């Protein structure tokens, strides 16, 4: 079987017409010679017919051969023999994914280097997200030379680190193996972002995850803001008659606590009747992110208030079609706060449970042998560049070119003799 790395180059076979045309045209240019014994030369029909056939079929054949070989070489053919296929099957291209969040990442790197050493080609991919690592590994394998292909994942495999969806990114025919390193501690503790405003103070939440469950403890770390007005980045505007109601709604929302964040990201919540609630379409990334969070807000879904999000001069404008005196107004303001400054985020590195060995064994897949079809696919992708027969074809073409030159010189000498006779 022959696979072509550059099949488009085969279109250059049209060039083979060129020498044929040249020979045909050369044929029609019969030289005129004065010859005294012309009376004995038979101008047969056969001679006239031959005039329309190419001259010097041997030279023409050699020239066609040179061109054909050059075109074939340009198309980069890969000849897949049984022997070559066996050689390809004997080697493995391996992408080793190292989970940088593993409990013992150092041991993981050591294990990865051992795996790489036994591979024909290998690449280490370090990532905190195994799904991202698998995607990158699949991308690298797609450009690997013909060989069996395998992904090795080195991780402690905390629960949630790997999903079946991520495994679907593995290319067909490629295998996957899992090497577990380290064991998560039985209990993990992490300090989360401070929260301001709850009970007029600043609080430091701490999360503790264990096999039994997750608990959060809060510790007061300071008084309220200096001016007694936390969340100055948040403004509520309403109809003049509802200004007091709007202020109440704001204070109510802040009283649940405001996670720490960037005070430059300002938000205006505008209730019905507010004088200045105009805005433009969103183009600032953090406002777009907050608008999306607002759209998915469960709080707004509970009160069933459709809000709009726009921006003006880098400030997010949240428009609510209800008055500030409405009972749902504090929920709208609170939803806006959480959209801009999300509540405590769960950190998966705190996970203490792991994916079971049985599950990993179920996901494991051995690399498939290199089939001719796979080689064709690889060849089309250009991964079999070093395996092409192009250099041999070029060498053969050069040898034929030498033969062509010799034939041309020989023909030239014959023509010269005739030219001398003609000149004489």
């Amino acid at each position, binding site marked *: 079987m022959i696979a072509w790395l550059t099949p488009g180059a085969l279109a250059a076979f049209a060039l083979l017409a060129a020498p044929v045309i040249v020979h045909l045209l050369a044929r029609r240019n019969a030289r005129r010679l004065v010859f005294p014994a012309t*009376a*004995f*030369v*038979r*101008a047969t029909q056969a*001679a006239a017919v031959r*005039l329309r056939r190419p001259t010097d079929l041997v030279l023409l054949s050699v020239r066609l051969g040179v061109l054909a070989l050059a075109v074939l070489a340009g198309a980069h053919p890969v000849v897949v023999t049984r022997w070559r296929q066996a050689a390809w099957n004997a080697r493995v291209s391996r992408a080793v994914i190292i989970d940088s969040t593993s409990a013992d990442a150092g041991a993981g790197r050591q294990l990865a280097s051992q795996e790489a050493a036994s591979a024909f080609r290998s690449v280490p991919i370090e990532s905190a997200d195994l799904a991202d690592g698998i995607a990158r590994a699949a991308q690298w394998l797609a450009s690997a030379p013909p060989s069996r292909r395998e992904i090795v994942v080195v991780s402690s495999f905390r629960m949630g680190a790997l999903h079946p969806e991520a495994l679907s990114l593995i290319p067909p025919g490629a295998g996957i193996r899992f090497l577990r390193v380290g064991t998560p501690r039985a209990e993990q503790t992490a300090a989360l972002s401070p929260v301001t405003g709850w009970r007029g103070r600043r609080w430091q939440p701490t999360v503790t995850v264990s096999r039994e469950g997750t608990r959060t403890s809060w510790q007061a770390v300071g008084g309220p803001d200096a001016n007694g007005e936390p969340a100055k980045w948040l403004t509520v505007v309403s109809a003049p008659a509802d200004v007091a109601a709007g202020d109440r709604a704001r204070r109510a929302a802040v009283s649940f606590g405001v996670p720490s964040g960037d005070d430059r990201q300002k938000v205006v919540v505008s209730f019905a009747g507010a004088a200045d609630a105009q805005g433009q379409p969103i183009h600032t990334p953090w406002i777009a992110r907050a608008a999306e969070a607002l759209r998915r807000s469960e709080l707004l879904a509970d009160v069933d208030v459709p809000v709009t999000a726009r921006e003006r001069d880098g400030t997010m404008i949240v428009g609510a079609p209800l008055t500030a005196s409405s009972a749902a107004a504090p929920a709208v303001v609170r939803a806006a706060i959480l959209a801009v400054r999300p509540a405590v985020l769960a950190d998966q590195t705190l996970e203490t449970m792991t994916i079971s060995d049985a599950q990993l064994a179920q996901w494991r897949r051995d690399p498939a042998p290199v089939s001719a079809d796979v080689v064709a696919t690889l060849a089309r992708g250009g991964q079999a560049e070093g395996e092409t027969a192009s250099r041999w074809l070029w060498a053969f073409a050069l040898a034929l070119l030498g033969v062509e030159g010799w034939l041309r010189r020989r023909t030239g000498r014959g023509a010269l003799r005739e030219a001398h006779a003609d000149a004489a």
Partner: protein
Amino acid sequence: MAFSLDPVALAAIADLELVSRRIVDGTISGLHRSPFHGYSAEFSQYRHYRPGDDLKYVDWKLFARTDRLYTKQFIETTNLWCQIALDASASMNYAGGAGVTKFEYARLLAASFAHLVSRQGDAVGLVTYADRLTHYLPSRGGQAHLRSLLLALQRTEPGGQTDAASALARTLDLLKRRGLLVLISDLYDEDERVDQALKQAAHIGHEIILFHILTREEVELPFRDDVELEDPETGRLVLANGASAARPYREAISAFLERWRARGATSGADYVRVFTDTPLDAALRAYVRRRVLGGAA
């Protein structure tokens, strides 16, 4: 001493007298008797036989009486009348790969022949022709006449179609007595009238020598590609592929040459085929030796 003279080099020398003399010197060196004979000779005296003398001139009766060998000597008189007819048609202006045209070769041959005949004291004349006679010099002896003949040869240029039959007929009219007629031509004018003219000449009693001048290319047709061949006399064009036309051509030209050889045999003519790449003195020497040793004429 025999060595060859390159026809191309000879043709490049303008002095035809010098060249022809050089050729003749090479041709007759070592010969003890003339290759051409007249019809009468007047007895002059006896002299003692010397080794190398022709035995047919030994007087055997005198030997019987005196027991000594004596050779008869004759008064040398002009007894051979030679007329050279040279084809100066356009077809003779072809050189092929030899570098010298057939006409240049034939002109040298004619000059050498004239020199040879003149040197043995005989009369020689010249006719050049194409579609008509272009030069006519009657047969005469002497150095002055030879120079005139060579000058006429020098001035002759080939051109026009061949009408050998008319030229030969006219030449026969002009010849006043029996003699030697030397025709130097490529003989492409092959028709019945030429045949008749040759037979008539033989019938009258002329001795005929046909020098058939050819190039190798005319025998082999060495072209391989497509060629458009132009007849220099008629201007006729023939389009042919050299490779495919070669075989039938060679068969046709072989038949043509064989016909001329047969004509020579039937009319009693001496037919000599000469290729222009053959050194002229060598060709002439070979012919003369053959003639002397074979006792021709």
